């Protein structure tokens, strides 16, 4: 029971309280770039969930069984990036094969998950927070879910904004920035949660 409640706290923490996009300000590039349509936002979110979960798993194993015993922890960043880059390549190939439409919709942002700091962020946080193996995987998963949630919410709002009457100079990116700010303020409300 204690384990379940711990996982629950982890989930709420990763998705709402310490949301990667709106509270930690990681992964802002796809947050603005791929949030024009709900469909592609959802696809991007799924890709990020997959990459984050896999990256958490592999990097935890790497850190615990290779880097720490051999005392080469200073290689953490480069080894993690290598892992993440390969994973993204893999995801890209899979998506291109299985969902060409999604591949086109995501465009350049798919390979850019490589440099999405949210992915590296979750990998490094796992280590810094001294999570266990299971916790790391779940934290990666929940971080991805939090990212997807925010991305889809943003895409939903921006789809409505397209039909709204907005002054010419505010159309597109400027209003998206304003919305992003408002969403961040809203998520600030979760920071009061004590878990």
């Amino acid at each position, binding site marked *: 029971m204690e384990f379940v409640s711990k996982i629950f706290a982890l989930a709420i923490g990763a998705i709402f309280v310490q949301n990667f996009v709106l509270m930690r300000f990681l992964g802002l590039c796809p947050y603005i770039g791929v949030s024009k349509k709900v469909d592609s936002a959802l696809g991007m979110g799924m890709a990020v969930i997959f990459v984050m979960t896999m990256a958490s798993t592999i990097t935890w194993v*790497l850190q615990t069984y*290779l*880097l720490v015993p*051999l*005392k*080469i922890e200073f*290689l953490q960043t*480069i*080894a993690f990036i*290598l*892992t993440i880059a*390969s994973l993204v*390549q*893999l995801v890209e*190939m*899979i998506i*291109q*094969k299985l969902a*060409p439409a999604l591949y086109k919709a995501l465009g350049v942002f798919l390979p850019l998950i490589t440099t999405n700091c949210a992915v590296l962020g979750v990998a490094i946080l796992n280590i810094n927070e001294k999570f266990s193996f299971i916790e790391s995987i779940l934290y990666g998963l929940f971080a991805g879910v939090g990212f997807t949630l925010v991305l889809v919410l943003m895409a939903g709002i921006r789809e409505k904004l397209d039909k709204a009457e907005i002054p010419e100079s505010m159309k597109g990116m400027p209003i998206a920035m304003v919305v992003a700010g408002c969403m961040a303020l809203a998520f600030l409300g979760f920071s009061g949660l004590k878990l």
Partner: protein
Amino acid sequence: MTTIIYSVAILGTLGIIYGLGLAFASKKFHVEIDPKIEKIGEILPGVNCGACGYPGCIAYAEAIAGKNEEINKCAPGGENTIKQIAEIMGIKASTAERRIAVIHCQSGGYNNTHLRYQYQGIATCKAVVLVTNGPNYCNFGCVFQNDCIAACKFNAIRLDENGLKIIDPVKCTGCGACVKACPRNLIELVPVSKQVHVLCHSYDKGAEAKKRCGNNTACIGCGLCVRKCPVAAIVLEDNLAVIDYEKCINCGQCAIVCPTKAIYDPKADNRKKARVIADKCIGCTICAKKCPVKAISGELKKIHTVDPEKCVGCEICVQVCPKDAIEMI
């Protein structure tokens, strides 16, 4: 020392493992891409102007290769591009006539505009028309902040010494960017072979339009051109003559009768009359049938004659004659 060896070994091994994994995956998830898309993409101009209706040249190339889209939609590419694409796709080229932009206003220069006021503000046409309808006294005329020039990606619009915009018919690709940029809707895309234009866009009543036009070339809606046009290609819409380019035969009769010179005909001074060359005429009657003003007469298998009084010099007979038996003199 061991640290260095470990570092190199670990990173090297990781790299090799990931590399092999990706190599395997790329074989497993290999996707065939139509080589035509790439080839067509290379031929298209790559300016991503959007004239074809697609968000960029590559998207258009994909539509051609994948969805059997028409191949003649690329305005900037012109005929050459169409031919090349036709070769790749193995189909016949169906060339649409090239269209170029025409500005339907002769005012807006430094010395041929009645100014309402001196404008000193944001220098775009869009901003200018918001300030009590622009500095041009004519409510429909050019406001000379040159949004069209800024919108043109091909440097096809230049200013002459009077500050009037001149469209270079060679450089203009008919992409329509200037048409969208003009807040006064003065610019229209017209087939390049049509050369007679109403260069006025004023819907004001005759006297009012004339008073406001700094160039004295306003269309006053008198309707003389409508009556003179041999093919009924001109109609009056709210005190403005408008040429239907589908019907227009380029004869320039409207320009001759226009009392305010609002209609422009580049060939105005050297319109020639058709004449049948007796040696070559075989009496096929095609020219007589095609003549819009019934100026050609003659019976089947006999030499035809052109009535110079009726002939308007549209040159249609020259184009249709199978034996090149008609000349313009």
